[in-house]
């Protein structure tokens, strides 16, 4: 099967490859900035969850390259569709980080949701693989309208088992939409290893079923992720149809903040992969090429920290949403009659005293042992 595309070596036995010409030094720095911002957000979110300031959180620590690298390859008009795992991707496109945090705090409406058209970033999608047909529909619509927009959707190795993955891949290939199917193969779906998820040697080879190119890339390598995505988008724009990208990596972390991987896997394996994590690896790479120095890195990290800190402040400044939010925005055409009656019913009783911004931090045994998001 196809080779794994890689650009960044490990500074030891694995040599660095060529940086594509189109990526100037300032691009590499900007890409690094994105990686650091994603990382900073993620680490902070985990801390917030531990403190009971947001709810269960699906962390993506280690998968930043698959997100920033792919997004950096997109044009501004291109649409991207995250799963829950790429929950913060919008912050690289202008969605306020506080909005994403508010989503995890259990806020809806204007606090926790955004308008996908504002930044061409789809909503956080919880039901596995269901956003893939949407990505196809968007690119299909753009094609009909003769617009230049492409689409990209991220999803996991587990998601490839769902019917929606298959139907979306097939629609895209038949309709030749410019869509990138970006599979983050972190080798785990909660406790299920990829060996129980599929019998194919690679995920990339699933593209053969659709007469579509399938590419494997090092999912810890942001430049390689950029490169394969750029190539796929280029081909798509020229009418070459969709591409399946398999970003081979590993879920170094638990599935979510309520998950305990020691129940089902040997954590020594995670340690092995941890050495390849993308943020440190990119920093090393830039240092080897003298593109990044201590001061600059410090500054980038400080800026990210600052941005996320502000987001936390902003999130916590949001007043707990009123009860009316239940009926807001359900219908774009206006409230049906029964909503008004429901509001009356709602207002008749005192608001439940137990409504807090959040319940206590997840404690096993408290009936909240669900560890999926």
């Amino acid at each position, binding site marked *: 099967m196809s080779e794994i595309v890689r650009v960044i070596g490990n500074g030891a036995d694995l040599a660095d490859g060529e940086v594509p010409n189109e990526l100037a030094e300032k691009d590499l720095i900007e890409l690094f900035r994105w990686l650091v911002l994603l990382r900073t957000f993620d680490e902070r979110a985990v801390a917030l969850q531990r403190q009971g300031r947001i709810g269960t959180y699906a962390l993506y620590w280690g998968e930043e390259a698959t997100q920033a690298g792919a997004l950096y390859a997109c044009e501004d008009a291109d*649409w991207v569709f995250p799963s829950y795992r790429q929950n913060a991707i919008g912050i690289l496109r202008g969605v306020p980080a506080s909005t994403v945090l508010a989503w995890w705090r259990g806020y*809806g*409406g*204007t606090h926790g*949701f*955004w*308008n*996908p*058209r504002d930044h061409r970033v*789809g*909503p956080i999608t919880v*039901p596995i693989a*269901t956003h*893939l*047909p*949407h*990505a*196809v*529909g*968007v*690119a*299909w*619509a*753009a094609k*009909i*309208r003769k617009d230049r*927009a492409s*689409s990209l959707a991220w999803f996991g190795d587990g998601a490839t088992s769902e*019917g*929606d993955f298959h*139907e*979306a891949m*097939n*629609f895209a290939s*038949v*309709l030749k939409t410019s869509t990138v199917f970006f599979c983050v193969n972190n080798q785990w779906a909660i406790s299920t290893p990829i060996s129980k998820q599929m019998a194919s040697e690679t995920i990339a080879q699933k593209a053969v079923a659709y007469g579509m190119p399938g590419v494997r890339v090092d999912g810890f390598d942001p430049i390689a992720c950029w490169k394969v995505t750029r190539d796929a988008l280029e081909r798509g724009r020229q009418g070459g149809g969709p591409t399946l990208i398999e970003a081979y990596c590993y879920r170094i972390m638990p599935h979510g903040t309520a998950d305990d991987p020691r129940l089902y896997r040997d954590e020594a394996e995670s340690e092995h992969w941890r050495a390849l994590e993308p943020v440190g690896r990119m920093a090393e790479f830039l240092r080897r090429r003298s593109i990044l120095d201590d001061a600059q890195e410090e500054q980038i990290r400080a800026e990210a920290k600052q941005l996320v800190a502000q987001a936390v402040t902003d999130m916590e400044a949001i007043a707990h949403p009123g009860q009316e939010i239940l009926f*807001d*925005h*359900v*219908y*774009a*055409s*206006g409230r*049906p*009659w*029964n909503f008004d009656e429901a509001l009356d019913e709602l207002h008749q009783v005192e608001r439940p005293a137990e409504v807090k911004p959040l319940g206590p931090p997840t404690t096993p045994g408290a009936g909240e042992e669900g560890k999926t998001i």
Partner: protein
Amino acid sequence: MTAVNMVEALNKGLHEAMTADDRVVVLGEDVAKTGGVFRVTAGLLDRFGDDRVVDTPLAEAGIVGSAIGMAVYGLLPVAEIQFDSFVYPGFEQIVVHAARYAWRTKGEVPASIVIRIPYGGGVRMPELHSDSPESLFVHTPGLKVVCPSTPADARNMILAAIEDPDPVIFMEPKRIYRAGRQEIPDEPPFTVGNGSPNGALNEYLSKARVAREGDDLAIFTYGATVPLTIDAAEKLAREERVEARVVDLRSLYPLDVHAIEKAASECRRALVVHEAPRTAGVGAEVSSLIHERVMLDLEAPVGRVTGYDAPFPQFANEDDYLPSVDRIFAGAKKVLEF
């Protein structure tokens, strides 16, 4: 004015919508080249081209899901589900996405799609071509569910459904697709795409219609059982000197609660009729609403004449399953004689 049947009326409405607004696209299995197995989309391919009228692969989740994506981008897709029971593979996309996209995007990006579903029995088809799944959608917050029973309504309602920013499940009673012709105006009642004429949505998508006047009994129904109910009402008039008011609900979600209250309390006796299974069907909701709101006006409990809580039978027995004029008549008498 032209006399058309329901298929022709829907076809006319689709032509009008596609002409008025180039964001309207039609997709589904066999909708383009042959114009749909019931020919509702006939002629659209020739007129509007294969960019806008598309024969898709055979996959309902793919159809509904990609239609949602198109709507998110800004188009107005009209998706056809070939027969009622084939909507089930698309059910997840409808419930978790179509119904929640507006809610999930601050009301700014509703899944502005229409899902057309020819539904119901009476056409002598094999298994799973005769279901009436509307209650499943009525129970799902975020959707609108409508069902015409006349050619004129069909044309107006399909236009309004396309105009409506919210996702509309458009149930088409296939049994009466060609049951009769009705004169309809040559010009559409409004132009699709002209900034949501809310009056039109209100008029055509949320209001029940009195299909027969009467003051002794209110019978609520929709779709293919409307003409049967009118026949039963005529029989009641002839044989029992009872004048039943027949209310064609048209909108199943939201229900036109004022029309329902009014008819029930004016007639003091009420009956609901539908093909779908009884338990937790639309009839249960209408019955509950009436009792909750105007029980003191009633002389008898609200009756229900419905499909049975059994799988829709093989077609040799479908007439046993379907509400018939006689069953509606008997159900009405039970309410009258209480």
